[in-house]
């Protein structure tokens, strides 16, 4: 059963805990610019958007990689083999959602590996804005969130 990271943008408070723990668990040191998830903060309009690899079903990055460094794991989706990566950045250029990033220290491509099935960002997100859910449950989850919003709206209206 394939699982994915589900991000609820409304819940994100922009604390960057996800970036911090991502770099700490992968590199053993703190360096958010080496994180596989990145919270884009638009301070002037108060918007925080966590961005990361969405684990596409037909990954463009995999198709364009000249070194076949990107592979597809049935459970964890796209995975990158850093020893094969030559740092050509074509995957970054071609990713339609900005989910692939560049490690500024090693100058190689990095992408979410789902922490071998226990994503640390989801574990420590204080607002549960990041969750690790079954892909098949995604539409149900979205529907449930929609109903919650509608219910809240109706309740406010009746007040």
């Amino acid at each position, binding site marked *: 059963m394939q699982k994915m990271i589900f991000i609820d943008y409304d819940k994100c408070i*922009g*604390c960057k*805990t996800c970036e911090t723990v991502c*770099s700490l668990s992968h*590199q053993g040191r703190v360096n958010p610019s080496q994180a596989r998830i990145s919270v884009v903060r638009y301070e002037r309009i108060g918007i925080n958007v966590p961005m990361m690899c969405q684990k596409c079903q037909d990954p463009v990055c995999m198709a364009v990689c000249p070194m076949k460094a990107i592979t597809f794991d049935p459970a964890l989706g796209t995975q990158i083999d850093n020893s094969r990566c030559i740092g050509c950045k074509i995957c970054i250029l071609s990713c339609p959602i900005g989910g692939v990033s560049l490690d500024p220290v090693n100058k190689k491509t990095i992408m979410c590996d789902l922490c071998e099935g226990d994503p640390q960002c989801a574990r420590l997100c204080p607002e549960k804005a990041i969750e690790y859910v079954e892909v098949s449950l995604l539409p149900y989850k979205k529907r449930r969130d929609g109903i919650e919003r509608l219910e809240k709206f109706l309740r406010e209206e009746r007040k």
Partner: protein
Amino acid sequence: MNGYTDKILVVDLTYKNVRTISTQKYSDRFQGGRGIAVALAYDFIPGDVNPLKPENPLIFMTGPLTGTLAPSSGRIDVITKSPETGLLGGANAGGFFGPELKYAGYDGIVIVGEAASPVYIDIFNDDVIIKDAQNLWGKGVFNTVETLRKSDEDVQVACIGPAGERLVNLSGIAFSMRNYAARGGLGAVMGSKKLKAIAVRGTKGLDIAKADGLIGLVAGIQDRIKMMPSYPEYPEWHYKLFEILESDSKSFFGNYEDRVWEDRFEAYENAKRFVKQAEFRRETCFACPLRCWAYINVKGIGGSSIAACQGTLTSLANFSKVKDFGKLWKAYLLCQDLGLDVSGTSAVVAFAMDLYPRGMLDDLWKQEPKLIYGNGDALIDLIKKIALREGLGNILAHGVRKASLAIGKGAAERAVYSKGGLELWLMEIRPFKGTALSSAVTDSGSQNRATYGLCEFYYKSMRKQAEMVAKKLVGTEEAAIPTKYEHKPKLVAIYENLHILADSLGVCSIPFMPVGLELWGQVFAAVTGIETTPKALMLAAERIRTLERLFNIREGLTRKDDTIAERMFNEPLKDGAWKGEVLNREKFEQMKDAYYALRGWDAEGKPKQETLEKLGLA
């Protein structure tokens, strides 16, 4: 070096050179942040300097936990000699600047000298360049940050607004578009150096001693923070705080003359409607679960982030008795953009609104709008005039005490302030004896650095909780009763220590206390690899506190300077839950005696030789 970058940047603006010094020289004894900043101030300031002259350094310092995975670790401490009080001036700010500075490879920055024309410092990892800032000079904070960020939203900026450029004592240093090192005129010191901004971006990262150990501790600390009774309510504090202050009987209105304001409930309702109708998104600081910030946008007025604390909307409303939240929001946006301390500025406006009807400002304010309570236009007008130093604003820009002396005609008797002449924050002080003592003995006059969280604050609304904390800290529930003088010195000393530790380790003082020293000690060990104990941490706090004292003594501070405004001793409260309460001078002096003794200082408040030896400061 784990947790630290082991580099403190020293930027000389006069000679335009940049060098670094080692953090290690200071970190063993002073931890980081506030502790190291005080030690640097003590080393760099020759004593008796004019705060606005090149000799006065401006020191930014992060702690060992800043920018790590430790919850609420976005803090940076700023220390200099304050132009408002002539004493140690310090403020601590959250946000994202401190972490970014560390990722660039620096624990702190010491700015010395003075540039010939406006400059900003551009830091990208090892590249530290002093650049021309003539195009930024005169710009507001929002615009300055936007300009310096250009295409990279991760660039963090520390800057001043027009108020800092004009050396206003109520000016702070803005960290990007929201957090402020607000109090004591730090912005004026930055302005005197013609330093408009520091922009930093770092991609080098930070070494951690035990990565897995740190990750393992974080969930537990997050849980503790979420167990705070106020945690679920934080996002609503933007309007609820009015009623919380009321339920603790802490509020006052205007220039400390009224405990009751007839229109207050209408104002509270307006606050709620204002927040509910605005575009509202919850926000927070680096790695912090608290979300005490929010982005609020009001059609036709504008949007900005705001902290749900005593120093923002509540301060503006209760001091000025303005109940139109559209006007208050505009006033807040102006303070944020012009670079003013909202707390101090609203206190000064209330002071002017108190004097005006008494005829004391007749020759200084002849125009409309009338400077009276409730007049939102007057509030807005005066804020602009303070920032730009026009007319009456030019006098008020010095801060409440100095302004009161300049105005004369008995204005000094109406002025209310903390130690050194710094404005008090929004809280009635006469019934709260611990708060009064803390405001008088604190390093900088800033209650934000010493008093926040004192268990007497919430005695009225959460008595059981307050008593439990008092019992745990000083051994008796009685210490939680606001009006009791007994046991307050010890309580105050412990809270000061906790503030010092939070500010020195690089963690916000709000979650610092409920999490407890035991856990923070474990976090410190995981980050730095250096084992510690609560006892060792408290000893470090003692050392830092006494060094702060030595700094102030060198600046001429004596026992009689450890006090607050006379009115708090002479004018009993005339209404409300604390009717008749006033500070008793004799008992107040006794509290000081006991406090000095606890600190190992003599009757004049000077650290004893044996204390200096015990703390390694001799």
